[in-house]
């Protein structure tokens, strides 16, 4: 195809290609965003300062996340059993740790929360009645989990018509591995207040208490403890048609009525409602109703009167139907639980003893787990996902 055109011309020697390529910002970024797993990206970031600067750049991270959404690695079944999902062999080490760390803590342990590659477990005394402490694990790291002693009970409270719920959650930033937050929602008669306790290894617990509010409808907790911490806002689902929001910075409450339709079918165990994170502001509500999965976005700044905006409506039957057992009847829908996975792009559906993993955007569903029949029906699942965003060393600028 190519033919020499007359006489040879001498051209100036270009720089060695490796220097030209890896020294070029755009080209380097193109390579970095194609590294598949955040774990690889972090290692590449440690190659040199230039690479660290690019790998930790927000624009690169945004693109990386679009190309490789944080994947579901496995499920913690309450009772602290870890079930790994099929994964590439490169991640074997990570899985061995995820399996070992929590199991190694002995009995009387519950997984309370998983976030960004960390796991919060609650350790109980021998009779499983009272929590002794919390442990934050990080299977992706070498750091060992240390016991954070549980704060004392809230006293004194009136003996009658009182309820206290405790939500144990991991902080959002995750850069301090050994910290967790307990949010107490306390109801005395018709009044409600909240207490936030930050447990941090090596320093005193920090307590904050909110003012007292009196919701229009008496607050009633759900038994499934569906709560969410996103953008410093803590949300918890009650069973009386509204969500309690608590600003953890100002400790002020927000009462959010559920969208139309979401208010019906409220059950004591709230199997059919789930809260989930949004990338921007606000949060999502997933509602399973009449075989339909409705996803709503709530944003107080959206301009909508009630802040709700419907985002998706998916027919659960169509989505899972092809995977259904022949003996399934529609009644099985009454035993469907919805669980969030990381952000709003995926869901777990537990149908009886079977667990399905569903991608909301393309409606793709796969079956990931068969639970033990005896205890499978009422068991709680905590999805464990790949870390996001990754944590980088701080650049020391000259």
């Amino acid at each position, binding site marked *: 195809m190519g033919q*020499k055109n007359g006489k040879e011309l001498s051209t100036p020697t270009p720089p060695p*290609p*490796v220097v030209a390529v890896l020294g070029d910002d755009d080209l380097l970024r193109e*390579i970095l965003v194609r590294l598949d797993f955040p774990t690889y990206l972090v290692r590449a970031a*440690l*190659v*040199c300062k230039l690479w660290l600067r690019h790998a930790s750049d927000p624009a690169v991270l945004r693109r990386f996340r679009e190309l490789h959404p944080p994947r579901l690695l496995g499920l913690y079944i309450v009772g602290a059993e870890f079930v790994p999902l099929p994964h590439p062999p490169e991640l074997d080490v990570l899985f061995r740790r995820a399996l070992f760390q929590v199991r190694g803590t002995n009995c009387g342990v519950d997984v309370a929360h998983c976030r960004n590659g960390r796991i919060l477990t609650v350790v109980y005394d021998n009779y499983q009645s009272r929590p002794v402490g919390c442990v934050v694990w990080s299977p992706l790291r070498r750091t060992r989990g240390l016991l954070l002693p549980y704060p004392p009970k809230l006293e004194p409270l009136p003996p009658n018509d009182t309820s206290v719920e405790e939500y144990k959650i991991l902080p959002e930033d995750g850069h301090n591995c050994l910290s967790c937050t307990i949010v107490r929602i306390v109801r005395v008669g018709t009044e409600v207040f909240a207490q936030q306790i930050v447990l941090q290894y090596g320093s005193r617990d920090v307590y904050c208490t909110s003012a007292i509010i009196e919701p229009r409808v008496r607050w009633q907790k759900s038994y499934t403890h569906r709560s969410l911490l996103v953008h410093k806002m803590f949300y918890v689902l009650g069973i009386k048609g509204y969500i309690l929001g608590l600003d953890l910075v100002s400790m002020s409450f927000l009462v959010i009525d559920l969208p139309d339709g979401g208010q019906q079918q409220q059950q004591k165990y709230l199997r059919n409602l789930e809260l989930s994170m949004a990338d921007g502001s606000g949060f999502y509500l997933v509602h399973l109703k009449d075989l339909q999965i409705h996803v709503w976005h709530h944003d107080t700044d959206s301009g909508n009167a009630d802040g709700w905006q419907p985002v998706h409506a998916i027919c659960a039957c169509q989505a899972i139907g092809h995977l259904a057992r022949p003996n399934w009847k529609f009644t099985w829908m009454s035993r469907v639980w919805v669980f969030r996975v990381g952000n709003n792009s995926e869901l777990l559906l537990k149908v009886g003893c079977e667990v399905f993993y569903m991608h909301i955007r393309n409606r793709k569903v796969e079956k990931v787990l068969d639970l033990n029949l005896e205890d499978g029906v009422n068991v709680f699942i905590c999805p464990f996902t790949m870390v996001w965003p990754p*944590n980088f*060393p701080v650049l020391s600028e000259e």
Partner: protein
Amino acid sequence: MAAPESGDGNNGAARMVTLISSDNTRFEVEAAAASLSQTLQLTILDGGGGGGDGIPLPNVDSATLSKVLEYCIKHAPAAANGGAPNATAVDRAELERFDNEFVNIDQSVLYSLIMAAHNLEIEGLQSLVAKKVADMIKGKSPMEIRRTLGFPDPTPEEQAEMNAHMLEYGWAYE
């Protein structure tokens, strides 16, 4: 001998353009293939590159250009189909096989290709070669990455800092 200077797109034949590498080699290709390059596309649309003119590419040597054009010629039919939504699975599998084979090359050739794909703005090729480099460093430790890509050896201080960071941030590193 000069390349034939015909191919103005008359007589039902595909329109041809001539590209001239940095070492003055002339390559004659179908305009459709050369147009995979965003950089060349406008010139070609304006009628450039035909006849005896040729489009000079002072940043791309003949060995690299020949490789780049191999890619363009293979991918042009699918690209003309608008990303080939109707392509059969066989076609797609064939392109994938070609791509895998195509980047199975020496590192210095790979780097030259990256530069060329970047300068000529050939999206598919940019992505393919960047992915190849990414594949070469996936799962490796920072030190292994440096060796793989031919970085100079780190100073003792850099090495110490790297080791410390690896313990702190390097994840599940055995």
